[in-house]
């Protein structure tokens, strides 16, 4: 149950309001989708345990409100994150342009060396695309981070992207117990029999 995992990673999603952060998380954590838009208030998180490299990784995925009014609340959560996912909407150019601002926000608020990843969401709505995949890729490359085009609605690349980020963090933390690898041990104990009994 709760303790049956080897690592705990904290991820954080940021990006303009309405780009689909919450939907991505719900798709990832609960494999679900609801097209009704409900703006996130403040902050929230969901937890999901996945397997990466044979290790059980419990991901605590933080959802932030994209709206400016919640900025003070949300930025407080940057620091604890080991991975930050920047999300834009491929049908909304403004949201893509704002990625720069979000990057800045990370710089100002997150711990250095935090893993980042760029997601262009809503890639199922090809007809309304405003931001080409190449543009997104370029931006990611410029920052030296991963990039995916995703669709929470159609379940495209959601799991993949989260797992990829988790793997990055895992590998990084196993190399050197840095900030991201807080209390992460390289060779997590395989649950012993006694433990299994317990939980």
């Amino acid at each position, binding site marked *: 149950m709760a*303790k049956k995992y080897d690592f705990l990673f904290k991820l954080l999603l940021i990006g303009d309001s309405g780009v689909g952060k919450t939907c991505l998380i719900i798709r990832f954590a609960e494999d*679900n989708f609801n097209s009704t838009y409900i703006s996130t208030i403040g902050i929230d998180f969901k937890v999901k345990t996945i397997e990466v490299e044979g290790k059980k990784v419990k991901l605590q995925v933080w959802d932030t409100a994209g709206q400016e009014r919640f900025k003070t609340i949300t930025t407080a959560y940057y620091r604890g994150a080991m991975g930050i996912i920047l999300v834009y909407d491929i049908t909304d150019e403004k949201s893509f342009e704002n990625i720069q601002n979000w990057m800045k926000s990370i710089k100002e608020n997150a711990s250095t060396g935090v893993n980042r990843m760029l997601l262009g969401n809503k890639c199922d709505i090809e007809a309304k695309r405003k931001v080409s995949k190449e543009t997104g890729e370029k931006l990611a490359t410029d920052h030296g981070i991963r990039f995916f085009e995703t669709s929470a609605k159609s379940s495209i690349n959601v799991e993949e992207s989260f797992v990829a980020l988790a793997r990055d963090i895992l590998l990084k933390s196993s190399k050197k117990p840095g900030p991201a690898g807080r209390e992460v041990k390289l060779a997590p104990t395989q649950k012993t029999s006694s433990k299994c*009994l317990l939980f």
Partner: protein
Amino acid sequence: MAAVKALQQWCKIQCDGYRDVAITNMTTSFRDGLAFCALIHKYRPDLIDFDTLSKENVYENNNLAFHVAEDQLGIPALLDAEDMVALRVPDRLSILTYVSQYYNYFHGRSPIGGMAGIKRPADAPTDEPSGKKNLPVTAKAFPSKPATEIRPAPNTVTTPFKPSPKQTRAANEKKVLVESSNKTGTLSSSCTACKHHVHLVQRHLVDGKLYHRNCFKCSECSNILLSGTYKPGSEPGTFICITHQNTPGSGLSHRNGPAAPRVGPTWLVNKNDRTETPRPNSALSTPVVTSHAATKPNITVSTPKVSTPIATKTQEARKKFFETTPAAPADPPSNRSQPTTNESAGKGRVLLKVADYKDKDKDKAKALITKKLAEENSNNNNTTYHSGLRPTDGKFGNKPSPAEPPSWKKGQDNPGVRGLKPVEPSLPQNTPKSTTGPLWVKTTDKESTRPPSTFSSNLKVDSDSSESPSDWRSKLKPVSKAPKASEPPFSTEAKRAEAPPKPSPTNLVPSFPPRPASSPSSAPLAVPSLPPRPASPASPGPSLPPRPTSPASSAPLAVPASQRAPSPQPARAGAGSWGFQNGKGSSSTNAPQPEVKSPKTKPDYIPKEEIMKELDEIENSLNELEKTGIQLEKQLRRSEEEGAEDNSMDELMVDWFNLIRSKQIYMRRESELVYIAKTQDLEEQQPGVEEELRRLMEKPERFKTAADKRREAELMEKLVEIVNDRNAIVEGLDEDRLREEEEDQQMNQLMQDLDIKKQKKKSAMKKLFGRKT
């Protein structure tokens, strides 16, 4: 003893270089507390500023160490700073045991009694905020009037606790140990609550006061208080479930709490209910809620007044009701047909009152009921349950002070039947209006009309929003997701699967004692495995059914009864009560059910009953362990006195540490369950807050009143707090996991070594302690 020497050696090495610290023994060397501080400082220099400490400040040093260890490291304070001052030569075994915990903790291994980090300190902080937050809401809802009425309740409630009055005094008392076993030690060893001797294995220190683990109870509902689930009560020296409110008005809620939730830990039940309740309120427009609340209280007040002449009686009656309420369903087995009507009426009555006082409670009750209904259809359970209770009564009879009949506790102890009867008569008084069915109906109506009553009611009220919190939630998180195989929550089934063949708790318990003696290696591991237990109880039926079986098991427990058995029983009783409520609930309202579903649907949702059931089981196990531990301690002290330095002593010591270890494992699970319950609480709470907040925020700025804005800010804060609390739990669990992971690994290793050792007749303890040094 090699083991002890090894431990001493370890301490010596750790404390090397620390001013005024010289470990030459396991008694006086620790008296001034500097050694403890040094041990902590050695590994966590951030926690203690050693340079500022002075050898002379015995109390301060010890107090500091004990508190830091407990709060920051999760090492339970076995010792009391006052004892260290009072005793020229501290109790050796106590010091040994306590230091062994440091060893376990810092060594990252738990050769001994890995007591490290029993309970997350995080709990307390986590809860408190939420609790506080809730308070305002409730407070608003309830006019002061009810308060007065309530007041009597707390007292009565406390009655079972009779010893409590002495508590304060007791705290300071340094009673000489009565038991021969304690000759050596002069620790203050009498329980603050019951005044009886506390054996090492039972020690539970809270704010420097010693309790039997079992005696540390809520002064309002008498549930055993687990760490993170209590807060100081209104009277000094008392503690109450975190869900209770200190305000006089709260008294009522408590009562209710005990009655319905009495089931189990109130914090568990109550909290949920409360949290739920608040939700509805929040979901509704605040103003509405308050108005409702206001009206209700008045109503209630009126009722009591009627009975005023017989004020006391009424109260008693009420109490009984509360008690009975839960119990009512249970007793019926025999009387059922007849009593049912009356009882139901009475119950309904009670509920009404309660409802009046507190919407929350009502909601709670409803929720409970619905849940129960959903889960348990059979009253049979109740019956069985009761039968189980009876034995309990006999045993526990002592505990609940006989003097006070009304106390809900008594009710618990008493077979439901008994309690009921008295109630009935009283009922008429209170509820002249409608005796039987009508009352019930009435209640139902009231509840339904009231927005607070439950989610279902919410729906109505919320019409504007059209979505009750639960609905909203369901939308967000579609239930569809079936529990994933990958991370099945605690499902009993999972446990069962893993569970060793062990048939029933009964078996388990007995098995344990013998083992330590003969082959500690296997025993400790086996015992800790919680799963076995669930297996037996779980299989019989959803939640209550198991109980019946447990009574049987209780028989073995009977022995401990004299000492502490009561606790487990009450818990069970509580469970029974739940069932009852459900039964009632079913009759009253079916609507709530959907609500119930929503939480349940969540993949890893563990029904409260499950949690409580397991907590009960753990409680039983702990009692057994403690019983064994008491014997072991006696043996140890005896052989210590006899100056036994041989292997036999070593073996005893190994057994002792193993036992401590087993206890630790149970307590781990216990604290985890507390976490889970809390998380679930919070998760249920969140949507409601969000809902209201959302509505407020949607309001155009210019239309917002000052009150709106204030409320908005409040809610925002509360929302963040809920999320933070949830996060704290995630982190707390993670810290536990990391520590326990290591502990377990070490433990297994150790056990293997021990086995070998034993065979070789070598000093196992030496290995234990000497291993890393």
